[in-house]
């Protein structure tokens, strides 16, 4: 029986090639979108699943409250380690201290590369369950050892056996390669940890870290734990949350709360607001999930509409089958097997589409998703997906078609009633409501990105490059390098800074100044710069003056930004002092000599943070900021800069970054979302239009005789076109009026997350509506005009 059904379905597909193409093609597109989104969601949800002990691992987080605002982050102070080990050690199977992931130079023989890596305590690799493929499992036992990832080892050693060889790190520390571990996969929080060096090495080489051993105020470290089996994150958090407050009374005023942030939340639920977890990327998982579901629904609606629209053609068959003895259930079964066949076809086409577009999608979404050929559960899910889609697309047509009464259809007088088209109309309205809402959403996302992009940055980021100077080799060489670079003609001005131009790496508090309100807990962005900073960035001085090498006293001078002026409550900041509030051993006071224009260093969607630029007395910033000579080409400039650099630092790879590129990175996440939703929107519209196209051609066919009669009676092409288009246009207009308020509500909510946001203008909505109508008219017109131009004699003769 089933075979018989499939046979008929197959012949039906072949007989109506146009409809079949629209049906299968539209469904395939929709299923491809859903599949890709499914793969993407799976990838997001499986983030960090490389770590076997995923469910037991957490990072230790800290919340502190300044001026009533609670900030939460992973930075913790060193003494916390001892406190947790001594007081609460039996909760943890492992507890390790860890540095931030930073770039270092690795050198072996003549080969020198710059790679990111971490310092970790000995049990780190065990805690994360790294897969050691060569050398010692306990690779951090010796202080002067280093564990390398497979790809880093290959980059450094090629075919040589790296175990036991000596690598020079940052041009000073000679470390022995103790182990090679398998590269950590891309969808993992540690995907850029290319090597691990023992924590003790970190401590031994850095005075500031040794000094931080008992300093509860220096929150500069990371800590990871793996719990013992019989406890939970909540339980442990409850016992340790007040440990800092209790042991360090000074910090109590900021109410530090220590808690465990489970690994399963790192990727998708990492946003905190006032100390509370408030989601994160998970919202995009939902967003894309919803988009996928809707796109699939649109494609299924096409199927439903085209099937029911053709019902008059199928009605006779239903009648005959019923008169021969078919029961309704059997007919339903038959129509469902037909949709199953179509869906199976569509699924294979969708697989092809996914295969061909997965690379492009990966680039766009910054993913490394592979096609899960060998994954049994993928195929099982796919099968369920096919069944589900068949039911979704096929059940309405099956119920509708099988309900015909044989007497009506066999008499030949069968006509679908006046309201038979109503469900079809509702479905078209639903389709276009979704499409129009998608258009509006995408336009608003794009607008928001452009709005933030066009926001004045405050400095001139074109033609500005920065060179990292983390190695000790750069210490004290600033003045020399500045003379050399400027002398070379490729650079017109240069400065150093303790953090990159596009970020804030350090914040300070503990100052007093005239007029400071009682109990005010300040929080200032802190950047140490060389005196030429403002000049090299073309940063405008709004009040007072810039640093000058002519005044020896400038070594204790600071510039503040405009926001800081307001934040500190100073009418005339120039000349005022920022004093250290440590009464026993105060640092010398800092004198404000000028106010500079606000520059965006953090999120372009947020207000600029109050910042202080301090004279870098020690001459050892983290970056060189080079203003390239605008009269020469960038390539020329870079070549000269590299030569000068190599001359002085032959052992260090020359690395640089254009500041405007780095600034552009700030938009990457939103741009990705924008581009992806743009593509999905385009597909949604395409699918809807495909359906509309099929529907119009059907209606035109159905009304051929009517059109013929009208034309004979004197109707023009325009009259006929108008008659055929009007019905559909009406539906789309209804959709617009449903979609606009929904889209407004959702997008307005989305925008609320950005303090610096575009204002929703009415014309966005008008534009989306006009766009949808234009697309409708174009789609419908193709068939309508074709029908209208047909020779009426021909169409009437066929009767």
């Amino acid at each position, binding site marked *: 029986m089933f075979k018989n059904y499939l046979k008929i379905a197959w012949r039906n597909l072949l007989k109506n090639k146009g409809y079949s193409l629209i049906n299968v093609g539209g469904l395939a597109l929709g299923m491809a979108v859903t599949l890709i989104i499914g793969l993407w969601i799976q990838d997001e949800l499986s983030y960090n699943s490389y770590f076997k002990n995923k469910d037991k691992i957490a990072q230790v987080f800290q919340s502190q409250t300044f001026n009533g605002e609670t900030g939460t982050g992973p930075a913790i102070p060193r003494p916390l380690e001892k406190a947790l080990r001594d007081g609460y050690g039996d909760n943890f199977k492992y507890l390790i201290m860890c540095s931030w992931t930073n770039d270092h130079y690795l050198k072996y023989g003549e080969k020198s590369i710059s790679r990111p890596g971490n310092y970790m305590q000995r049990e780190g690799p065990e805690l994360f369950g790294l897969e050691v493929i060569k050398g010692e499992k306990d690779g951090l036992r010796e202080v002067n050892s280093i564990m390398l990832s497979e790809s880093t080892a290959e980059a450094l050693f090629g075919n040589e056996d790296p175990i036991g060889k000596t690598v020079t790190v940052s041009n000073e520390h000679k470390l022995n390669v103790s182990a090679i571990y398998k590269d950590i996969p891309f969808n993992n929080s540690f995907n850029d940890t290319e090597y691990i060096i023992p924590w003790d090495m970190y401590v031994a080489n850095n005075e500031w870290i040794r000094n931080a051993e008992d300093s509860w105020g220096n929150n500069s470290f990371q800590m990871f734990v793996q719990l013992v089996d019989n406890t939970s994150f909540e339980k442990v958090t409850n016992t340790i949350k007040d440990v800092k407050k209790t042991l360090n009374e000074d910090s109590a005023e900021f109410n530090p709360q220590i808690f465990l942030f489970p690994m399963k939340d790192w990727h998708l639920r990492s946003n905190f607001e006032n100390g509370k977890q408030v989601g994160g990327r998970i919202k995009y998982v939902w967003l894309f999930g919803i988009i996928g579901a809707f796109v699939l629904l649109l494609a299924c609606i096409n199927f439903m509409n085209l099937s029911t629209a053709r019902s008059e053609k199928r009605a006779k068959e239903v009648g*005959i089958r019923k008169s*021969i003895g078919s029961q309704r259930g059997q007919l339903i079964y038959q129509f469902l097997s037909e949709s199953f066949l179509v869906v199976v076809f569509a699924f294979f086409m969708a697989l092809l589409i996914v295969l061909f577009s997965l690379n492009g999608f990966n680039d766009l979404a910054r993913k490394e998703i592979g096609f899960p050929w060998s994954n049994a559960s993928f195929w099982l899910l796919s099968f369920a997906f096919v069944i589900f889609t068949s039911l979704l697309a096929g059940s309405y047509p099956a119920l509708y078609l099988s309900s015909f009464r044989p007497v009506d259809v066999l008499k030949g007088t069968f006509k679908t009633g006046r309201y038979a088209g109503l469900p079809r109309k509702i479905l078209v309205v639903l389709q276009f409501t979704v499409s129009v809402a998608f258009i509006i959403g995408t336009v608003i996302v794009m607008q928001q990105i452009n709005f933030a992009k066009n926001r004045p940055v405050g400095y001139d980021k074109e033609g500005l490059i920065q060179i990292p100077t983390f190695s000790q080799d750069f210490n004290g060489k600033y003045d020399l390098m500045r003379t050399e670079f400027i002398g070379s003609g490729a650079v017109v001005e240069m400065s150093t800074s303790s953090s990159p131009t596009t970020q804030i790496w350090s914040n300070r508090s503990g100052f007093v100044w005239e007029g400071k309100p009682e109990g005010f807990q300040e929080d200032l962005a802190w950047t140490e710069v060389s005196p030429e900073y403002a000049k090299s960035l073309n940063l405008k001085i709004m009040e007072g003056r810039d640093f000058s090498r002519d005044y020896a006293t400038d070594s204790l001078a600071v510039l503040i930004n405009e926001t800081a002026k307001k934040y500190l409550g100073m009418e005339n900041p120039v000349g005022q002092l920022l004093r250290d509030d440590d009464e026993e051993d105060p640092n010398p006071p800092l004198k404000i000599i000028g106010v500079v224009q606000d520059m965006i260093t953090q999120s372009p969607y947020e207000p600029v943070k109050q910042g202080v630029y301090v004279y870098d007395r020690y001459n050892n910033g983290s970056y060189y900021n080079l203003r390239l000579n605008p009269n020469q080409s960038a390539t020329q400039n870079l070549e000269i800069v590299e030569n000068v650099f190599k001359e002085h630092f032959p052992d260090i790879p020359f690395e640089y970054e254009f500041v405007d590129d780095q600034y552009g990175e700030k938009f990457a996440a939103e741009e990705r979302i924008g581009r992806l939703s743009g593509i999905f929107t385009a597909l949604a519209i395409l699918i809807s239009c495909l359906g509309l196209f099929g529907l119009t051609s059907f209606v035109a066919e159905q009304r051929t005789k009517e059109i013929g009669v009208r034309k004979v009676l004197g109707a023009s092409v325009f009259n006929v076109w108008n008659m055929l288009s009007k019905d559909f246009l009406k539906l789309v207009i209804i959709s617009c009026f449903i979609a606009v308020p929904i889209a407004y509500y959702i997008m307005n909510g989305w925008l609320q997350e950005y303090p610096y946001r575009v204002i929703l203008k009415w014309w966005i909505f008008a534009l989306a509506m006009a766009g949808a109508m234009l697309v409708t008219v174009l789609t419908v017109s193709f068939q309508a005009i074709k029908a209208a131009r047909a020779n009426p004699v021909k169409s009437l003769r066929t009767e």
Partner: protein
Amino acid sequence: MLLQLKNVFKWVNTGGQRIFLLKDINLEVEEGEFISVMGPSGSGKSTLLNVIGMLDTFDEGEYHFLDESVHTLKEKYRSNLYKEYIGFVFQSYHLLDDLTVAENLEMPLLYKKVKGSERKALVADILDRFNIVGKKDLFPSQLSGGQQQLVGVARALIASPKLILADEPTGNLNSQQSEEIMELFKKLNKEDGVTIIQVTHSEKNAAYGSRVINLLDGRKV
């Protein structure tokens, strides 16, 4: 007795008026009869046939088919009943355009859940009997009207029904084709004992039957 209609009424309401399609029909049909239903257009011939064929319902009265009270049966049992005992032949043949002759013939057997091998045998049998073996892989559109109706009759017969209902079976055929079909009916009636009820306009066709029922405005006259 094969079937019995008792005081059957069927009506529709239009504009507050009740229009009777069948009015107080009483009819008894014995097995082996060959009945012709005649009457002008709109007299209720086809409606009566559809009611007998259980494709249509009626509003009042009783219908007994082989001792089953059709008017009290649920749809499912009704369809079981007619798929077992009744075959239909239509004026415009109503073959399925997408199926070949053989497949069209096979369809009623599929719905009766006859096994595959048996189905093949029955189809081969009937093709042979109707002399259309050579046409078994053709589609209906490739046949002449007479040939299509031949297939239609063959399809009605394949499940060996007790009763064949034919609604103007020769209405679309020329006189020679008509004669062939009517001869076929006669033979089936005589030799196989199949009961036949046909609707017809033609006196000549009616003459093949053993009894004529005349209808006017839904009433037996």
